[in-house]
């Protein structure tokens, strides 16, 4: 609604005000006019009556005095009559005196001057005569003797001055009444109008003004006030509700249209339009976050043949199954689209390395090569996947699509049922990764992983206090593979969980065995990935494991890295408390690298801090490392925690640590990680250094 242009419109207040003023004025004016006329008439009648009384009382006396030529005496009578009354003049015509003067009559009498004082009438005074002429009312009577002789006349004049004064009073009074009554009326009517009309209308306007972006009022209009306002509100509310409903329907229709425009009708996947948009968005996001985007082009091999031979219905069903499989495989954040026919595409965001896409590609190849049964037909299909990487291969959506498509055809050329990167180098790296992943799975299955033990020694007396169990991969071809080569991949693929459990089970079995055999291996530290802790049944697995291996809880210590704890400290505190409740000790591994918050550290149910080897390496020369190490030791003491240093290789390092209060030492200085049989020797002989 447009409210800006209504400022020149007349307010309802003003309009009503004008109407009220007009009506009140007209009514009061008519009333005043009536009162005025009535009063005037009454005054006039009063004047007539009064003048008649005066004349009657004067007539006889004046006649007697006229007869005796007592002019001054009747003049006095006239004066007496004038005094105390408001008549304007009384004029006497005296024929007797007139005769003396040689005239028709002698004129005398009294008249009022401008101030209302009674003065002698002077017949020569033209001003007085004019005033008499102008008098509102006059009456004249003959003065006759008892015998009927006419001696003269007596005339009474009444001006309208006093009448006008009275009438003016009435008019002024009426105007004051009119104004006061008008004001009272106005005030009353304005109050009534305000509360019964304008206020409800203002509420309606205010409610309508408070509208959403479509201009539809957010709330319904309050329906109070008079019947008409109530009806108006109700009608408007019905209208609003109707508009809202229409809008919802329209929106649903719009959404449906939008969905249809952006999605594939058969599979419900994003179509090319939406795919292009998503790709653009992913590129922008990756650019901002400095991450990589992998674009997969998946084409089902020989799908045309299936379509031609089994019909489009079967073909469509295959596409639906493929869609389902793809959806189950990819992560939630990835975008899956059907670009047409048997072509699918996936956008995978937040990659650190281009080759990270290879695992998914491999999984997809495997997944799609699984046979599928459609209407009792066992079908074997395969797929070819082309991958382009932003920004390695290109920075525009158009180029990435083009390169992924080219890579897909390359995969077809390579004999189908494989994936290809647009970059040949990348493909190679990816294969290595895929091979490693496959090997890890194989190794776990074949028991190629072995557990090594690195001693932990009290530096003061060179006595073994415990050991750390560490995993090693004994590859049948490559030999012993370093943990740094496979642990990150295992963490990435989730294989770390079975791997950790394998190591823990092996170590627990070994410890129990040693204790049974009478050795004193101390507390064996086991590495624990946080992913492990997120497994719902980890505690029960741990309990089962302890039970099955007959390993006591106090014989082991679980190490969690500081950085892993700090990714979700609240969750970590919760789970670690459960572990601690089992009687298993807890240590923070790699302490000093994970930005621990002291408040969390205080709340963690831990027993030990393990100073990361990166701080030990340059001791005691590196002052910074020395300071950090000292600080960690001091911190552990203040928190009443044990402390151990790992990566200790030299005597100087060991002595520095002991000097500063860290007695527990782990590192090459006392021994490299070693297989169980070698450790048994150490357990038997002890350390001689």
């Amino acid at each position, binding site marked *: 609604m447009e409210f800006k242009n209504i400022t020149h419109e007349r307010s309802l207040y003003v309009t009503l*005000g004008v109407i009220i003023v007009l009506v009140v004025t007209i009514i009061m004016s008519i009333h005043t006019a009536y009162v005025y006329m009535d009063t005037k008439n009454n005054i006039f009648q009063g004047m007539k009556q009064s003048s008649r009384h005066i004349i009657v009382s004067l007539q006889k006396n004046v006649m007697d005095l006229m007869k005796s030529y007592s*002019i*001054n005496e009747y*003049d*006095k009578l006239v004066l007496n009559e004038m005094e105390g009354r408001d008549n304007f003049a009384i004029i006497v015509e005296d024929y007797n005196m007139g005769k003396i003067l040689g005239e028709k009559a002698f004129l005398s009498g009294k008249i009022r001057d401008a101030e209302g004082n009674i003065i002698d009438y002077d017949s020569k005074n033209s001003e007085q005569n004019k005033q008499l*002429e102008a008098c509102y009312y006059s009456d004249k009577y003959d003065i006759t003797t008892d015998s009927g002789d006419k001696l003269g006349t007596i005339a009474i004049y009444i001006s309208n001055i006093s009448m006008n004064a009275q*009438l003016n009073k009435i008019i002024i009074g009426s105007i004051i009444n009119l104004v006061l009554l008008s004001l009272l009326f106005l005030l009353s009517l304005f109050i009534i109008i305000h509360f019964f009309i304008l206020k409800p209308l203002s509420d309606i306007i205010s409610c309508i003004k408070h509208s959403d972006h479509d201009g539809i009022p957010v709330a319904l209009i309050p329906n109070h006030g008079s019947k008409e306002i109530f009806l108006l509100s109700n009608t408007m509310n019905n209208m609003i509700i109707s508009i809202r409903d229409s809008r919802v329907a329209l929106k649903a229709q719009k959404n449906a249209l939008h969905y249809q425009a952006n999605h594939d009708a058969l599979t419900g996947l994003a179509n090319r339009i939406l795919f292009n948009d998503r790709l653009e968005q992913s590129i922008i996001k990756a650019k901002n976050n400095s991450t990589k985007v992998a674009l997969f082009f998946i084409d089902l091999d020989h799908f045309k043949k299936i379509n031609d031979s089994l019909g489009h219905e079967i073909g469509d069903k295959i596409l639906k199954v493929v869609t389902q499989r793809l959806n189950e495989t990819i992560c939630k954040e990835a975008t899956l689209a059907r670009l047409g026919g048997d072509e699918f595409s996936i956008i995978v965001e937040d990659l650190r390395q281009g080759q990270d896409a290879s695992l998914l590609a491999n999984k997809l190849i495997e997944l799609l090569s699984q046979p599928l049964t459609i209407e009792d037909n066992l079908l074997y299909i395969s797929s070819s996947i082309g991958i382009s990487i932003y920004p390695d291969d290109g920075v525009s959506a158009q180029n990435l699509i083009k390169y992924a498509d080219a890579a897909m055809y390359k995969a077809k050329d390579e004999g189908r049922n494989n994936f290809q990167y647009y970059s040949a180098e990348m493909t190679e790296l990816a294969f290595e990764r895929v091979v490693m992943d496959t090997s890890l799975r194989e190794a776990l299955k074949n028991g190629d992983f072995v557990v090594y033990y690195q001693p932990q020694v009290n530096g003061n007396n060179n006595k073994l206090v415990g050991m750390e169990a560490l995993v090693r991969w004994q590859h049948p071809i490559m030999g012993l593979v370093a943990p740094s080569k496979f642990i990150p991949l295992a963490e990435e693929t989730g294989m770390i969980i079975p791997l950790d459990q394998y190591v823990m089970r092996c170590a627990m079995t070994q410890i129990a065995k040693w204790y049974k055999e009478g050795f004193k291996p101390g507390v064996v530290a086991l590495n624990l990935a946080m992913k492990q802790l997120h497994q719902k049944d980890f505690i029960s697995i741990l309990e089962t494991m302890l039970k099955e291996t007959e390993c006591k809880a106090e014989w082991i210590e679980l190490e969690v890295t500081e950085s892993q704890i700090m990714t979700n400290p609240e969750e970590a505190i919760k789970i670690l408390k459960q572990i601690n409740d089992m009687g298993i000790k807890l240590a923070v591994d790699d302490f000093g690298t994970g930005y621990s918050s002291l408040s969390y550290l205080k709340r963690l149910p831990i027993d030990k801090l393990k100073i990361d080897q990166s701080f030990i390496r340059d001791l005691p020369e590196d002052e910074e490392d020395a300071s950090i190490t000292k600080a960690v030791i001091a911190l552990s003491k203040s928190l009443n925690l044990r402390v151990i240093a790992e990566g200790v290789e030299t005597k100087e390092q060991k002595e520095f640590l002991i000097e500063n209060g860290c007695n527990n030492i782990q590192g090459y200085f006392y021994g490299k990680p070693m297989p169980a049989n070698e450790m048994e020797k150490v357990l038997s002989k002890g350390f001689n250094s």
Partner: protein
Amino acid sequence: MSRIPFFIILITLLTLFSSCSDDKPLKNTKNLQTNISSVAPKVQNTKKLAYIVTDSSIPFWAIMGRGVKNRADALGYELEIYNAENSAKLELELTVKAIKENVSGIIVSPSTSSACVTILKLAKGANIPVVISDIGTDSGEYVSYISSNNREGAYDIGKVLAKKMVALGFEKGRVGIVAIPQKRLNGQARTAGFMQAMDEVAIKGADIKQLVTWSEEETYTFSKEMIESYPDLRAIWLQTSNSYNGALRAIAESGKKDEILLIAFDAEPEFLELIPKGILAASAMQQPYLMGQEAVNAMDKYLSGKEVQKNIQLPILSISAENIIKNLPTIQRNVLGI
């Protein structure tokens, strides 16, 4: 719309009403045109005065007329004396006549102070100055009013009487008054002055009887009544002079000539004998001749453009046997106009 109305409508209505209030007068009289100015004076070259006197048959007025005449002649005025013969109508007619004669001034001794008002009004209409000699006027414009100091005169004569009564051992007795109408100012002044003198010596009063006809018979009746009503009556004061015989007769008939004193006001030529003989104990004598003269003097002064005293009061002579000889020339001239 918002500017319309209230005032326009109001003004319209009020205009309508006010036009109603300005209705033409409801007349049943014709224009009054006759007036005093219609008494058109003649063109007069010589200075002429008119003396309008209420009744010149009364010695007091006749004497005053002589005083007027004497002084007018002396000052070179032509004088016309108009005798109203105690008629109000004639008095007015004469006034009109005098005005028509275009006299330079009018000296009037009116019949009543009320009648004088009309005379003054008529004279004013013709722009003629008027000097009033005695009686006075109820209102109106005049040059000067010449009168006797009635109160003082009455007081003085009262003292003369009191002295006589004390000398005769009559002070315990009462004094009756035959008065002129007390409506008249001079009547009131005479009574007040006399009573003051009586009060000073604690002489009690008897009745005050007011003259209506001024006749000798009336005076006789009043005097007789008082003599009969008040056995201790020791004096009668007659506030006038002409009806003194009525009082003397009543006293004589009562046989109390030596027991009741008679005093009077004004004078008659006979008083010149009666007072020395003790028949009339005393009389307060106005000086009408002198008043007439003073009236002309005042008029002359006015006509000469000189300042004139508005009220001139002339002394009254208290004449008894003791001082009558001494004051005889004055009495003869100023009082009796002989």
